[in-house]
């Protein structure tokens, strides 16, 4: 890891206009939770689907997508990355610093709002909220690694990321249970499920399989990203 890369990336992320989305999505979720609480009152039957569909199903992948691609793709796009790469700094530490930034931002803008929304919805009950918070953390790590990799290898990282998260995981996964077996979202939910009692929907794979899968995806994505960055070719404006 490299402190200078970390601080440049954090400043870059919070300075870009795109990062407003990071704030907007959690605010929408918390506002929704407040409205539900006011209308329905404390009700676990509404709290669980809300946290599962919104926090894990929408907020987590979208925030991770913005953060994961945002930490590196724009820099590659406009050529700024040359100032990091033309240095005797290991490519590994550059990618690791970018990934850590993305994870920290994703946890801050997903896990924290999930806790808040959970407390609002359940009135502070002990059960499903910590499980969902934990799910967003492990999910954030794997999602960010995948999206950082996409940011390194493709100029259309956001599009591919959206296709994966929304079309594959949410849409296809919603109708085809088998597709959920290959889904970061489902693996993250496995942890949530194992930490809670009586959540209803069962995940496709158990936590004992899901957690190693999440770790494997993270490590593989990180290694490929490092390799690709080592041989990043720059072309001129033309």
């Amino acid at each position, binding site marked *: 890891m*490299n*402190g*200078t*890369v970390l*601080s*440049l990336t954090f*400043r*870059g992320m919070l*300075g870009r206009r795109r990062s407003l989305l990071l704030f907007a999505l959690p605010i929408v979720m918390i506002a929704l939770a407040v409205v539900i609480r006011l209308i329905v009152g404390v009700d676990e039957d509404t709290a669980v689907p809300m946290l599962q569909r919104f926090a894990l199903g929408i907020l987590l992948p979208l925030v991770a997508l913005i953060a994961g691609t945002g930490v590196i793709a724009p820099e590659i796009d*406009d*050529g*700024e990355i*040359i*100032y*990091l*790469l*033309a*240095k*005797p*700094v*290991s*490519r590994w530490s550059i990618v690791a610093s970018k990934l850590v930034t993305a994870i920290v931002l994703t946890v801050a803008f997903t896990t924290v709002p999930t806790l808040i929304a959970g407390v609002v919805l359940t009135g502070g009950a002990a059960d499903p909220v910590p499980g969902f918070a934990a799910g967003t953390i492990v999910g954030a790590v794997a999602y960010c690694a995948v999206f950082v990799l996409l940011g390194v290898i493709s100029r259309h990282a956001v599009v591919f990321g959206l296709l994966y998260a929304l079309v594959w995981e949410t849409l296809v996964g919603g109708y085809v249970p088998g597709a959920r077996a290959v889904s970061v979202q489902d693996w993250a939910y496995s942890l949530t499920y194992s930490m809670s009692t009586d959540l209803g929907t069962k995940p496709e794979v158990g936590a004992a399989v899901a957690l190693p899968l999440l770790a494997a995806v993270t490590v593989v994505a990180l290694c490929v990203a490092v390799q690709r960055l*080592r*041989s*990043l*070719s*720059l*072309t*001129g*404006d*033309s």
Partner: protein
Amino acid sequence: MSTIKIEQASRWYGNVVAVNDVTMTIGPGVTGLLGPNGAGKSTLIHMMGGFLAPSAGAVTLDGEPIWRNQGVYRKIGLVPEREAAYDFLTGRQFALANAKLHKLPNPREAAERALRLVEMTEAADRAIGTYSKGMRQRMKMASALVHDPAVLLLDEPFNGMDPRQRMQLIELINGMGAAGRTVLFSSHILEEVEQVAAHIEVVVAGRHAASGDFREIRRLMTDRPHRFVIRSDDDRRLASALIAHDSVGAVELAAHGGGAALHVQAADFGAFVAAAPQIARKNGIRLWEVLPADESLESVFAYLVTS
């Protein structure tokens, strides 16, 4: 003292060959890399800077391969052509970040030294986003100079600079070359190269067209036959008057844009340009148009390649 060697290097993108079997050695002092747009200058600089692998051949710095070798950046300073440079940072923060990335023992001092070198100390606390093009260029220079590199690579550094900034940069580059650094810059403008580099390498259409002392190449460029297209109120009479002059090699009366015109080939550019109007006047012929037909850089370069 460091030397970059390019040995039989080629680079292609699919079916397009950007650099074709180029061999050159860039040693201490200032070298100008001259060629028309799209000749492969940027491709060469990217290969020398480690941002592009040669498809064939080798590019080395003091014997070490440059591609996928991040250690070379201790010796190389790179000034990219593109503008983007962390607009949200101030100039001082940007220079400092670069110094820290180089893991210099005293990054703050190195950053200040680089800022002084490019005369950006005064504007150093403004965000880079507010800089003019010339200031950005100097900031990019500062970022490349923080670690006092033995080799400096500049990709089209004069683009978009006003004359004063240009003068300043020329001075800076000349200073670096005199101090024994290996400085290479690319340009498509002959007059720019003339003021900076004694030694130039010319690339045209991906090929290494000429190499050597600037005056030598300049002579090659100016001693070629020059072509002019002339229209007047009496082309035929003008033709006979022109051919009598020493500077004229050939005259042809040919079709030109719907009408007729004289195509004149002159051996001596200066003498012909001075003589043509006098000849016309003496013979009472009115000149409508005198057009140098091949003064574009591309045609100058093309001539160099074929000769």
